[in-house]
């Protein structure tokens, strides 16, 4: 389904020179190598790749905004569950210790490691939550044909924060920590561990369902 695009844009007329914004609308540039292409006509599920460097240029999605909204709402619910219930329970010498994501941030802060405490807070709580809420803030109004104040800014930040939302990496960290503690104490998974596993799946599905190109066009056209 991948069609490498050929760079067929004619060079601008040396005489006339100016390219109008209108024309810029029907063109597409590769973010990785700057090559310009005429906007391709793709059906949902197809992918346009840059013929020169292989970057994905366009990837229209088959589902509408309602699909992404449903996934984001589920993610939000799972996010709340994951952060209110205990993630793991540790039994050691008759004592029980309960751990959640915030417990780790607190403990690091209390030990004087505020840098790591902040980093963990940012990548496991702030960035994922901001991204989930942004999807809802931008898409819900668009679905009703409206656009809320600052929607473009919010959506921009959602893209910027993409690499900093690391819930799935955290899940792997939980796995390694459980194994490390295995012969030291008894570990019991808490409710939040299951909701967290679900959260990762739904957040990935939300990301995969977002049609960035279409959302930007809608945001520009004033919904």
């Amino acid at each position, binding site marked *: 389904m991948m069609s490498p695009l050929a760079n067929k844009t004619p060079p601008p007329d040396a005489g006339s020179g*100016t390219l109008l914004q209108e024309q*810029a609308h029907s063109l597409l540039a590769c973010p*990785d*190598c*700057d090559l310009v292409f005429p906007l391709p006509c793709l059906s949902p599920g197809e992918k346009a790749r840059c013929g020169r460097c292989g970057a994905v240029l366009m990837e229209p999605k088959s589902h509408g905004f309602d699909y992404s909204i449903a996934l984001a709402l589920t993610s939000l619910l799972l996010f709340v569950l994951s952060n209110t219930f205990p993630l793991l329970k540790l039994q050691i010498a008759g004592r029980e*210790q309960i751990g959640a994501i915030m417990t*780790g941030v607190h403990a690091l802060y209390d030990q004087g490691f505020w840098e790591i405490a902040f980093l963990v807070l940012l990548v496991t709580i702030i960035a994922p939550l901001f991204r989930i809420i942004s999807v809802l803030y931008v898409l819900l109004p668009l679905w009703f044909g409206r656009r809320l104040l600052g929607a473009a*800014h919010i959506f921009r930040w959602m893209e*910027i924060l993409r690499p900093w939302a690391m819930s799935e990496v955290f899940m792997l960290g939980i796995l390694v*920590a459980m194994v490390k503690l295995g012969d030291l104490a008894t570990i019991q998974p808490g409710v939040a561990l299951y909701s967290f596993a679900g959260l990762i799946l739904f957040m990935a599905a939300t990301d995969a369902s977002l049609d960035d190109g279409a959302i930007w066009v809608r945001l520009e056209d004033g919904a």
Partner: protein
Amino acid sequence: MMEVPSTATALGLILCHDCKRLNDARNLGAHGLCVRCGSRLHARKPESLARTWALTLTACLLYVPANVLPVMTVLMTGRSEADTILSGVKALLIGGMWPLALLVFFASITVPVLKLLVLIFLLLSVQMKSHWRPRERTVLYRLTETIGRWSMIDIFVIAILVALVQVGALATITAGPGAVAFGGVVVSTMLAAISFDPRLIWDAMEKPHEVD
């Protein structure tokens, strides 16, 4: 390449970093903001080489304390034991958990080293205006950009262990200064990858190769 490819820059257009809209470079507003999303426009990421070098060198410096200093200290029944990144991998290996040991070794040791080497290689190749395999170098860049975040595993393991194992003198785990340095390595390599502009690789291709 036989014909001169038409790039956005050659056509007098600037691609917005954030929303990917093409803006007319000659009709920019007073502040040079994208007409669609309002982010500041640059034909290439600003000061890309200088910023990427600075962040890559910072990561190289932090890499030493990250591996030498303990990332956490385990206090068990009166005895305290300091763990470094590498000794953590060793402990998993001794415990017979070799798939997990391999995973942690890959995420905490292989990925940061590879990332630093790739970034330095890309920076040098751009500065030397290399014409060597631009497509492969671009793919290498994209890979570096995506894989970096997985190095955070060790930081998360520390956060979870520190949260759970707080049973006074019986068993207590505290974070160590190595963890701060390691977090610094991960963050600065991620920022370095974000600051690098892969289009610089292709800009060099459009100029004739300089013969030494």
